[in-house]
């Protein structure tokens, strides 16, 4: 049982979570920086090719600041991140912050709408699978989610392209139109990518929603609700959804992380100019500053979302509210 919290207790909870978030961001930045910079492999050498003379390699190393100690470079990068400066591309010299803005909106909407879509799929499907778990249709939903989990998101994308772009010719197979220039076109180009993320993420989420509702269904207050005349489905939904949502919120953060991973691949399938495409180009050209800053942006978004979801417990769980709200007292 969670203790009942007063106003100061709740403030301490929020501040504590923010402190953990800051520590997590620092740890994540260290992981990213260490992986990219401490592994063997000389960026300057790679950029100039193996046949280049040592003097020009040394010159480039100096120009990129690679001759300075690792810790100093980490400190610089971190200070830059804190002030919104994501460094500069080693090739074009452009600020990564400026390069990131447009792809970020593409990936953001892809993941946001995909996660929303997965909830739209998973909540009714999971509730139904829990409600009808002893019947063939509940079993069918469960089996379908199992199959959905076995399909990579990019495969779903390919299947959707085959059906809607190749056979039916309703939607474009790939390409991207910005929302500003053509909202209808934006919708048409984003629809299939969003659906492929929704379906695959939704399949995994359906299993969580199902087991959450199955567990809630065995609790006493649902039995009481049933005994005073509530139908099984409406009792589960009306009196069980808050409890079930607590469990679902726990995995939603991981779903967002998986959503970004899925988006990187789905962007390749549909040739969307998002962060995934930007990252893959940067990997191909070994533009390490772009790779490390863009990965850090993605990881930071996931960590912030996880923190926000943790804090949303306070809103979802009345036991964490203050007495003065007049709702949480016992």
């Amino acid at each position, binding site marked *: 049982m969670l203790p009942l919290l007063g106003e100061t207790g709740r403030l301490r909870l929020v501040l504590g979570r923010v402190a953990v978030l800051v520590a*997590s961001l620092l740890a994540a930045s260290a992981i990213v920086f260490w992986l990219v910079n401490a592994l063997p492999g000389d960026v300057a050498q790679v950029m100039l090719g193996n046949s280049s003379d040592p003097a020009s390699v040394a010159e480039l190393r100096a120009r990129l600041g690679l001759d300075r100690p690792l810790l100093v470079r980490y400190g610089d990068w971190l200070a830059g991140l804190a002030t919104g400066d994501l460094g500069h591309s080693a090739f074009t010299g452009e600020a990564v912050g400026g390069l990131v803005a447009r792809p970020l909106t593409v990936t953001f909407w892809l993941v946001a709408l995909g996660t929303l879509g997965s909830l739209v799929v998973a909540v009714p499907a999971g509730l139904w699978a829990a409600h009808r778990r002893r019947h063939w249709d509940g079993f069918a939903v469960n089996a379908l989610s199992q199959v959905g989990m076995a399909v990579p*998101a990019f*495969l779903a994308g*390919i299947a959707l392209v085959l059906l809607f772009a*190749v056979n039916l010719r309703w939607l474009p197979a790939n390409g991207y139109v910005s929302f500003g220039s053509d909202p209808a076109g934006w919708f048409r180009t984003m629809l299939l990518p969003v659906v492929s993320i929704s379906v695959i993420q939704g399949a995994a989420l359906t299993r969580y929603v199902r087991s959450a509702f199955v*567990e809630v269904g*065995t609790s006493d207050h649902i039995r009481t609700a049933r005994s005073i005349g509530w139908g099984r489905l409406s009792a589960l939904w009306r009196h069980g959804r808050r409890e079930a949502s607590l469990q679902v919120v726990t995995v939603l953060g991981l779903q967002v992380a998986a959503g*970004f991973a899925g988006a990187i691949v789905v962007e390749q399938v549909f040739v969307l100019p998002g962060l995934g495409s930007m990252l893959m180009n940067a990997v191909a050209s070994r533009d390490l500053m772009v790779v490390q800053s863009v990965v850090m942006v993605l990881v930071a978004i*996931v960590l912030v979302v996880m923190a926000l979801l943790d804090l949303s417990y306070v809103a979802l769980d009345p036991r964490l509210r203050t007495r003065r709200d007049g709702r949480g007292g016992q």
Partner: protein
Amino acid sequence: MRRASLVIGTTLVALTVLSGLLSLVWTPFDPVGVDPRSALQAPSGAHWLGTDQLGSDVFSRLISGAQICLVVGLVSVGIAAVVGIPLGVLSGMGPDWLSRLVVRVTDVLYAFPAVLLAILLAAVLGGSTVTGLVAIGVATIPVFTRVTRAGALQVMSQDHITAARVAGIGWFTIARRHVLPNIAPLLGVQASVSFAMAVLAEAALSYLGLGTQPPTPTWGRMLYDARVLLFSHPGLALWPAAAIAAAVLGFNLLGDGLRDLLDPRLREVR
């Protein structure tokens, strides 16, 4: 119904393993052989599943693809287990501050999916089978830590552990004799489910070109190559897709089946 998951899961996993083993000793054609004259043939007596745009035999490539899938799965789950299980035991049995620290560290790792780790590694070292399996292995560590920790906490709250501690038995012995044997079924189930996730991740990485490099046949790469021929030869995408789905479904169902078989307490309340 419970038996069904175990039976279907075992069958699909066995099919994948047998294909991989068979391809070690025999394939109808050289899986990396190129023969432009016989490119894009329909399935026939000679080429059971047809040929791709380079004239390679699809069936040979398909069964050889099981090798990389299984190697990456085994090694990455191995990495995750070797690092994740001790961490989990440590945080389940250790002092409170250590327990919290491990949870926070695994939470940070959760923010690094395999694809992101592979991108970081590939940017420096280039894409390879090793890049892929290290990325997938590290990304799988937090799941093992979390499951082990939960299991260890549960075991530690039981009376026979209290008795052992009162009797002055050291924590290492308790971990070895009581905690690990008790949570072994749980970990076996997790290994199977994580194997399924690893197969999915490997497919994604080789599709992106971050994992195993051509010409070594992988299912993800076969899908990537089939992508440009989706309009004219959709069958080329079908086979690797089916192989990925079968392997993942197999390991997932095997995990579900094992859960019911090994530990009746984990069974869903009915």
